[in-house]
């Protein structure tokens, strides 16, 4: 009986490792930008090309940078969540329209329940996206008053993620 104990033990350890491995999402690559200053950029606004937008505009505010595109399928899933959040007010939602056509993006907003962004930047060639380490859209960054990235949410923002993680964090940063 005792000689089975060791193989059984090894087997159980393997099962535990595999179980953990299966639960991890390989697409969620931890961002090295957490705790670092938000990358500098100055981009034209999506809706008003003559105006620019830069992280400096939000110094002293807690804000959310949401990377989106009209070609992005899962953005449709999160868009109503963002529109609802914008309606409730109190959260600075800044958009980064990533590798898109301006006209497509504006039409997409109109078709999908409105523009929750205040405002959205227009990153046509994706260079600013690269500075943010964007590799899949949508991605959402939470930035504190000092301009430090505090959290990155990969994939669509779900009501669950919003209530459990993003909003509590933003409230906490707001108090800081």
């Amino acid at each position, binding site marked *: 009986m005792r000689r089975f104990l060791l193989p059984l033990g090894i087997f159980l350890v393997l099962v535990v490792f595999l179980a953990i491995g299966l639960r991890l999402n*390989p*697409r969620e*690559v*931890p*961002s*090295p*930008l957490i705790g670092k200053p938000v990358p500098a950029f100055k981009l034209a606004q999506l809706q008003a090309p003559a105006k620019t937008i830069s992280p400096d505009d939000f110094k002293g505010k807690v804000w959310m940078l949401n990377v989106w595109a009209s070609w992005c399928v899962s953005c449709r899933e999160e868009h109503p969540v963002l529109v609802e959040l914008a309606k409730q007010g109190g959260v600075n939602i800044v958009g980064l329209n990533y*590798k898109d056509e301006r006209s497509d993006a504006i039409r997409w907003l109109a078709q999908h329940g409105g523009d929750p962004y205040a405002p959205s930047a227009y990153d046509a060639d*994706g*260079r600013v996206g*690269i*500075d*943010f*380490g964007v*590799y*899949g859209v949508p991605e959402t960054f939470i930035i504190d008053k000092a301009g430090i990235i505090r959290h990155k949410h990969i994939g669509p923002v779900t009501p669950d993620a919003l209530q459990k993680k993003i909003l509590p964090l933003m409230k906490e940063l707001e108090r800081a």
Partner: protein
Amino acid sequence: MRKLIAALIAGLLLSLAAHAGEAQPVGDPAIEARVNKLAEDLRCLTCMGQSIADSHSDFSTDMRREIRDMLTQGKSDQDVMDFMVQRYGDFVLYKPPVKSSTWLLWGGPFVLLIVGLAVLVAKLRKRDKQIPAAELTSQEHDAAAKLLAGNDQPNETKP
């Protein structure tokens, strides 16, 4: 048969031509060579399991463009790697750096090898001790002596 071979060769040449057309963007061949070399060591984060050199995804195309631009500006290979790691983390590297969080990754196989050898040696020693140096009975002794003397080998032809 010959037609088939000719068709195959034609197909091969065509695909090569198509490939060559795609893989050779305008620019300095020396820089292109460096771009390709760097791209082979970087992971395509949207396609997982492919390098930026292998992949045709949008992400990889952008990355290759970024690398090409940096090299054209006179940046070194190390600058490019640092740029990528700053944005995408160590995960973007196919060969992870040796540091405290990765020592298990690099040292693990050697630790397992040493543990395995130690267990093997210990087991062998234990087994050596378990096999008693058996005493022969007098009968067995006689039989052995006979065998050694060569009297008990009827099948062997004498020289």
